[in-house]
Structures are given as structure tokens and as C-alpha cells.
């Protein structure tokens, strides 16, 4: 399942032998797990395969912490922290700060004017011009793109960031002789960020929204699905935020968000590659330990009430039809999580999976069909989803009915031993494959620690799969796939063009 990650830029894991059949879980990698006095956590894994190192910093704050009326704030902050510090991207911060104050003053006035029931178009126009002029004035103090250049010039790759519902992560890989660069720049960045050029970058984020959610069918369907499936919990909102909300966010709001959530004690950093763990700890202490701890606000988020009946939603879009079905599931830490992972594999892993064999081949109703266990996040109870594209001339309705037939058969008959063994073997070997990449490992360690509270999660989950029985699968499938707990989204062409279709 492709989750639409909000990236700052475009896009752009060792063990011992095992024997499937009696698949055994690879041993935990020798991660050095250190928490500094201020609560900042470092997970370090030495891999001396090539002289490179991957850094992955995950803050335990994501789009779910956005407040109503200002959705998109967490993601907008992620963009803004690429804009430098009090010493990076600036020629003279003191003078610049004054010029930035003027920008902010006009920016806030413009937000207030535009939010009025009947904005005065003359005043909006005038304020826009003033904003532009104020930004131009502040430009004289800017050293454009200096932060990005520091990494790029030194050979940085995989340089990016993403905001998920439950976390925000900052990523870069460097040649391993440049650990100092990362330590120095990142310590400055998360201590002294300066959100310069705010209103320009806000426009960039609006373009990101237009691209991924307004002009792309999958994004449009995904937004509508979430808004229907979750009524109280903030999983209701797509992380990019509603367009009008983005337009209401000021630099001041964004700075406050930083102060509230970006304490060192809310961060997990994983560093994987050609490094000396002892030395990394020393450097981390020297650079990061004196950043003061900040109280992390409690998770006072609305709790999603039990769903009492199927929900359906339709999105009209100039595109061929698609569908998305999601069932509310229990918390990721529930004892049945491993059985759900097993169900996921039985339904959609490979050409022997039930969905592929029976719906893509067999009944020939689907062009593609995928499942995913925990959307849109793992920190709070989410949904198990099936996403599919019907194959002409099959309709979404026919495909939907066939999906339920497969699910009902799993509920009634349970899985075969062969299917379960296949899933276990693939999960074990999948972990071995994951050991081949600094970036993949770093992401897995930091994300699992930040979102589900334990970097060992991948290994433990694979171990738990060993204990899942056919009866567990049957029972959990019956509980999970409850019709009253599901939400169904269709993406359909506007009626006029659906009729006028002249496609082969």
C-alpha cells in the first residue's frame, strides 16, 4: 500500500542463516541505545560495508497534533526547518529579524482579512503587495539555500524529510568522514531555527497539496476516505491539511508549534553506517545534551467512538474507477496484531495470495489489489485497508462483492498451513533483505521507536508470527471484518464523461 508521504523534496537493513520451513527469526542487530540526560534518544548501529552513514531523526509529533482550523501545521513546520538558523542562511540575523517582523505583521493582517466573511478585495490586494514588498526587503539579509548547500556540497544524499500522522522525520546520508557536519548543523537547526521566507514556502506547500490530493486520483480518494472513516480522531484529516487551513497558518503559529513539540526529549535519532558508536555518543553529548528538556504536551486527542454502521463515500474525478475499503481495527499493541499481519500476507502477498489468485487471475475482476494493516498510522487505532482497481469491464461494485466473498471464506475456513508458512518465511527473509541498507535500517529503527515505542518491533513481530495459529486467523478475521465497522470509498468519473468514454 502506498501511503502518500508528505516529503519536503521529491522523491525521491545482519543475521544468521535461517531455514524456511522452520523459519527462525534473525537475531536483533547490535543497536547501541543511549538516552542523553535531556531525554534525546540515540540508536546507533555500526555497519562498515561502505564509508557512508545514514541519519534519521524522528520527532514524536505528526499531523494528528494539528488543531482544528490549522490542519497542516506539523507538515508546514517540517518544510520551514529547512530555512536555516540564526547563523545559517543569513548575512545579519539581527537586521533580518526586524525585517521578518514586518513580514509577519502584514502576513497576519492578510490572514485576518482573508478569513472575514466578506474580505475587502482592495485591502487584500494592498496587503498582498505589502507582504511581497516586506519579503523583498527581508531578502537582502538572506543567503539563499545555504543549509541545503552544506549537505549537498559535502556529498549528502537521500536528503529529505516527511510528515506522517504520528511522526515527523528528517533524513540525510553522508560520507562517513562528515559526521561532524551533521552533528553541528542539526544541533543548531533544532535549537535555533529561523522560519524565514515563511509565506513563500506556504505557497509551495499549497502546490504540494494540489499535486498530491487535488490533481491525483489516489490522493483525492484517500482524503475522502479518511474524512469519512474517522469522525472524531484527527486521523480524519489528511496530514497536508485543508487548503483554507494552510492559508490561515502564520509564522507565529508555526514557531509556537516548534516550541511545544520539538523538545530533545521528543526525538529519536538513529545513526546507521560506518561509525564508531562510542565516538558518536561523545559527539552527541557534546552537541545536543545541553538543549533544555521541554515538557511534552499530553495526548489529549479525541478518541474515535465505535463505528455503528457501514459508511460509503464517492469522489468524482476524471479518471478510471478505484475503490478503498477500510475496517476499524484495535490498537497496534493488541495481542492479535500478529494475526492481522498474517491475514494481510494471506490476502495479498505475491502471486499465490488469495486476492491475486482469485480476483486478478481467476475471476479477472481486478487490475491491482493491495492490503495494508495500519492506516493512516500505528500510534492510534487505525484501519485495515484493501485498495483495488477494477479491470474493465468489471465494476467497482462487482469487485467489492468479490472481495467480501474472499474475506468471508477466510472467516469460515481459516487459512491453510502452507499459506501461513509462506507468510512466516517471507517475513523472516524480508528482515534479512532489510539489513542491506543503512537508510532502510535507520528508518525502521527510528520510526518504530518513535511511533510504536520500540525499535525492536520488526524482529518481535516476526517472532510473534510464529505463534499465530489457524484458529487465531479465523477468529481475528471474523472480528476485524465486521461490516458495520467498514468504510468504503469509490473514485468514479464524473457522470458525463463516464458516458462519453471513448477509450479502447
Amino acid at each position: 500500500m502506498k501511503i502518500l508521504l508528505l516529503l519536503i523534496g521529491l522523491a525521491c537493513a545482519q543475521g544468521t542463516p535461517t531455514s524456511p520451513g522452520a523459519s527462525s527469526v534473525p537475531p536483533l542487530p547490535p543497536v547501541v541505545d543511549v538516552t542523553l540526560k535531556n531525554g534525546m534518544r540515540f540508536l546507533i548501529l555500526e555497519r562498515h560495508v561502505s564509508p557512508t552513514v545514514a541519519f534519521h531523526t524522528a520527532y514524536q509529533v505528526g499531523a494528528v497534533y494539528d488543531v482544528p482550523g490549522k490542519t497542516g501545521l506539523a507538515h508546514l513546520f517540517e518544510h520551514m526547518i529547512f530555512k536555516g538558523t540564526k547563523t545559517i542562511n543569513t548575512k545579519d540575523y539581527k537586521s533580518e529579524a526586524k525585517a521578518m517582523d514586518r513580514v509577519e505583521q502584514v502576513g497576519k493582517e492578510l490572514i485576518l482579512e482573508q478569513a472575514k466573511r466578506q474580505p475587502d478585495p482592495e485591502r487584500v490586494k494592498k496587503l498582498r503587495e505589502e507582504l511581497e514588498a516586506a519579503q523583498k526587503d527581508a531578502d537582502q539579509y538572506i543567503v539563499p539555500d545555504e543549509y541545503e548547500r552544506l549537505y549537498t556540497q559535502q556529498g549528502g544524499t537521500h536528503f529529505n524529510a516527511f510528515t506522517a500522522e504520528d511522526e515527523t522525520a528528517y533524513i540525510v546520508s553522508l560520507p562517513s568522514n562528515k559526521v561532524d557536519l551533521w552533528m553541528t548543523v542539526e544541533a543548531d537547526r533544532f535549537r535555533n531555527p529561523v522560519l524565514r521566507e515563511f509565506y513563500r514556502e506556504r505557497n509551495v506547500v499549497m502546490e504540494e497539496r494540489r499535486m498530491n490530493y487535488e490533481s491525483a486520483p489516489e490522493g483525492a480518494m484517500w482524503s475522502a476516505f479518511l474524512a469519512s472513516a474517522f469522525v472524531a480522531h484527527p486521523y480524519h484529516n489528511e496530514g497536508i491539511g485543508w487548503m483554507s487551513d494552510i492559508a490561515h497558518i502564520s509564522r507565529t503559529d508555526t514557531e509556537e508549534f516548534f516550541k511545544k513539540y520539538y523538545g530533545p526529549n521528543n526525538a529519536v535519532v538513529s545513526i546507521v553506517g560506518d561509525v564508531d558508536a562510542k565516538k558518536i555518543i561523545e559527539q552527541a553529548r557534546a552537541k545536543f545534551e545541553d538543549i533544555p528538556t521541554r515538557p511534552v504536551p499530553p495526548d489529549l486527542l479525541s478518541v474515535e467512538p465505535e463505528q455503528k454502521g457501514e459508511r460509503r463515500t464517492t469522489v468524482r474525478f476524471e479518471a478510471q474507477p478505484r475503490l478503498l475499503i477500510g475496517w476499524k481495527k484495535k490498537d497496534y499493541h493488541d495481542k492479535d496484531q500478529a494475526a492481522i499481519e498474517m491475514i494481510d500476507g494471506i490476502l495479498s502477498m505475491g502471486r499465490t495470495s488469495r486476492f491475486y489468485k482469485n480476483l486478478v487471475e481467476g475471476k479477472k475482476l481486478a487490475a491491482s489489489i493491495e492490503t495494508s494493516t495500519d492506516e493512516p498510522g500505528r500510534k492510534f487505532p487505525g484501519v485495515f485497508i484493501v485498495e483495488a482497481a477494477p479491470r474493465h469491464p468489471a465494476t467497482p461494485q462487482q469487485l467489492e462483492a468479490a472481495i467480501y466473498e474472499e474475506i468471508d471464506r477466510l472467516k469460515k475456513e481459516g487459512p491453510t498451513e502452507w499459506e501461513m508458512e509462506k507468510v512466516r518465511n517471507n517475513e523472516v527473509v524480508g528482515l534479512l533483505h532489510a539489513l542491506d541498507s543503512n537508510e532502510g535500517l535507520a528508518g525502521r529503527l527510528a520510526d518504530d521507536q518513535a511511533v510504536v515505542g520500540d525499535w525492536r518491533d520488526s524482529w518481535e513481530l516476526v517472532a510473534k508470527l510464529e505463534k499465530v495459529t489457524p484458529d487465531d486467523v479465523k477468529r481475528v478475521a471474523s472480528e476485524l471484518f465486521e461490516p458495520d465497522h467498514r468504510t468504503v470509498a469509490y473514485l468514479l468519473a464524473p457522470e458525463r464523461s463516464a458516458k462519453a468514454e471513448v477509450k479502447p
Partner: protein
Amino acid sequence: VKSFIALALALAFVAPASANPPKLAPFPPLEFHPPKGVRVALANGMLLYLLEDHSVPLIRASALIRTGGVYDPEGKIGLADLAGRTMRSGGSQKYPADKMNELLEHLAASVETGMGLESGSAGFSCLSKDLDQTLDVFADVLLHPAFEKEKVEVERNKFLEALRRRDDDPREIARRESRRMLFGAGSPWGWRAEASTVKAVTIEDLKAFHAKYYRPSTISVAVAGDFDADTLIAKFKKAFGESPSAEAKKLEAPPAPPGPAARKVYLVDKPITQAAVRMVQFGFPRHDPDHFAYEVMNDILGGNPFISRLFSEVRSRQGLAYYAGSGFSEWTDTGMIMAAAGTKNETVVTTVSAIEKQIERMKNAPVTPEELKVAEDSIANSFVFNFTTPSQIISQRMSLDYYGYPADWLETYISKIRAVTAADVQRVAQRRLTPDSMLIYVVGDPKAFEKPLDEFGTVTKLKAEGAL
């Protein structure tokens, strides 16, 4: 979209202590001698590239086969692609498809095949203990594919469904159609499969395609992982046979139409909030001496994420787009240069003009010494990332060989980049970039454009539904 093929060999990186950001001590030197692996030519003509790595009990292989989509016959465009899809999924002589699926998936192993423009591809991965079984399947798939009728129809229908869905995503329309309009719908460099051409492909066509292009002498395989090289060579000899196969013919790439073309502007009317803008022109083939200077130039113009001129100006300074950049593709006989951005309908003309301005600027004035240094440092310092895993190292060695790069390509790469001067950059910009004749392709909602696109030339209007 750099066509920088993953690059290997006896390389020693000694990166000198370079200019540092403020307050940092000089970086220690980075010394690295990536393993090069071995290249073995078997008596049957197959080329093997092997690199042992015993850290994980896995073996991974990738293969290139001398064929490709550009050699399709005109009435059957999509033949090579369909063959690439079905060679594996249609089963083989010894392993009927369903049995093969069960066998491999239970081992958590994989064998796959595919098709590129100028190469066929294949690969396998498995636990090292399952090598014999997996290699047997891999060889049978490459030498004796069965093209089972039912599986071929499944793939054909997936293909047809993909064609039906090809106008769903505006960026995909712009990518595909701009190239098609540049090279022409009748040129293999521009054409696309249609339902009729895909339906015209018979099972006999697939078998004939395989017989024509697939035999040990047309196949190169790069293998990395937990094996003993001598033992593996013996296993390959056994699996693929030892008798010589007919030598691989040098394939003649179809000619590209002559360029440069006159300026053309295309507009696809689609009711979306963000217009996809793509500008394309003819480029240059691989092995062109301009490659290194052009690579540096493109890095500065729009290739480098975050700091290129297009990114910096169109995105960061003007807030017009989320993506804005440039790239180039090099093929045997021809190439393509492109720039792209996505912007709200209300700023389409502004964005096209902003891209044009940066292209003109690249031609009209030399880059600054600072820009040149940052670009060259960036390419040189990140070079080590071409050598991060054994499978990456060995497959790039194979790939360079396949495309005829000289043996010292990797060893001399950095020095050739370092030798590029600001004058070289301006020279290739002037020689290669032709903004006046660049084809402009826009997918968006013209009702909301701030001005008509006419100022860039005569606009050909198209509808997404059916007319493309």
C-alpha cells in the same frame, strides 16, 4: 532524472579536505577501495559478474539481455513489454506457472523478468541454501519460457487496463506525450503501445521474440551475496549449458528524427487545480564527449534537488511549484533534455517563463565559480554512494559493460567532473539547449490560466478523454 547509470572497479577514493562550512574542523580524508568482483565469460557466451559477500545468507542477481522495446515491429508495439511481463509469469518448460509461484514464494525467493527501452531485464533473489533450486528456475525462465495462454491473457489484460488508466495522472500524461510529440508517434523513441497493438501480439509472436533475442550469449548476469565464486560459475555452466550460442548481434537502434524541431505548444484540458508543465527537446546519445560538462551544467540548472537554479528560483524564491527541475536521458543514438514543474493554473505562464529564463541565463552567462565548485563537489563527494551494497557494485559494473562504457569509466569519473570549467558549462549550454524550439506540454485547466499560452507559440489543444 539523471541518466547517471549506477557506476565500479579498482577505485580508491581519497577525498581531500575541502572547504568547510564555518566553525568545522577539516574533514578527515575518506579512503575507500570498493571491491570490484570478477567478470567471467563462459564458453556459451554468457557474461557473469560476481561479488561474494557473506554478511547475510542471501544471494541477489540481476541480468541484462540484448533486446528492448525500441526494436518492436510497428504494428505490434508492446510486444517486447508483454514478453518481459510474461516470460516469468507465464511459467517455463519445467515449471508450470502456478507451480513456480508456489515453489518460489514458499522459499521466499523470487525470479522476475522485465523490459526496458534498450535492454531486457531479469533477476533473482534467494536464501543461499536455496540457490540450486532458484537458479534452476531462473535458467528455465530465460531459456525455455512457456508463455502459458491463460497467464499471458492475465498480463495482456493488466497491460490493457494500464493503457485505459494512462490519462488518470496529469504528470504521467505530460511525461509520456511530450516525448511522443517530440520524437513523433511513429518513432520508437516516442511511440506508445495502443490497445490494438497489444491485442495484435500472439503467443507465437512472444515465442518468436524469445527465440530471436534470448540465448546465453545475449545475457549478462551480475550476482552478489553468500556464495563461492568458483562453485557458482560451475552451477551457471550446468544451468545454462556449455556449448557456444550464436554470438549476440549488435542491435541497430532505430534512428531518431532530425532535430531541432520548431517550437510547438500542446495543451491538454483537464479539470485539475495544478497544471503539469513539461518542456522537452532533443538531447545527445550516451558516450558523447559533452557528457561530463553537461552533467555539471544540469546539476546547476535543475538536476540538484534543493539548490539548483530551477528549484531555488521557481520553488524556494517564487513559491510557484512543489517540484521544479531538469534532467536528461542518453540512449544509443539519441537523447532527450527536459525540464518540468507543477504549478496552480493561475501561474502557468509565469512558471513556463521562469523556466525559460533560467535556460536562457545558462546560455547567456557563465556560472559563478561558487556554483561550479558546489556542483563538482556535490557530484564528487556523493560518488561513494554508488558503492554502498555488493549488489549495487556488481550490477553497475555489468551495466556499464552492457552499454559499452570504457573500462576506466569509474576510475576517471571524478577527475573528468573536476576538469569541467565554467567555460565548458556555458559551451555545452549554448550547444545543447535550444529554448526557442523546446516543445512545451501543459496539462491543466486553461479557464484558470492567468494568460493564454499563445505567447509561447501556436497552441494545439487536446482533450484528455480519448483524444490523446
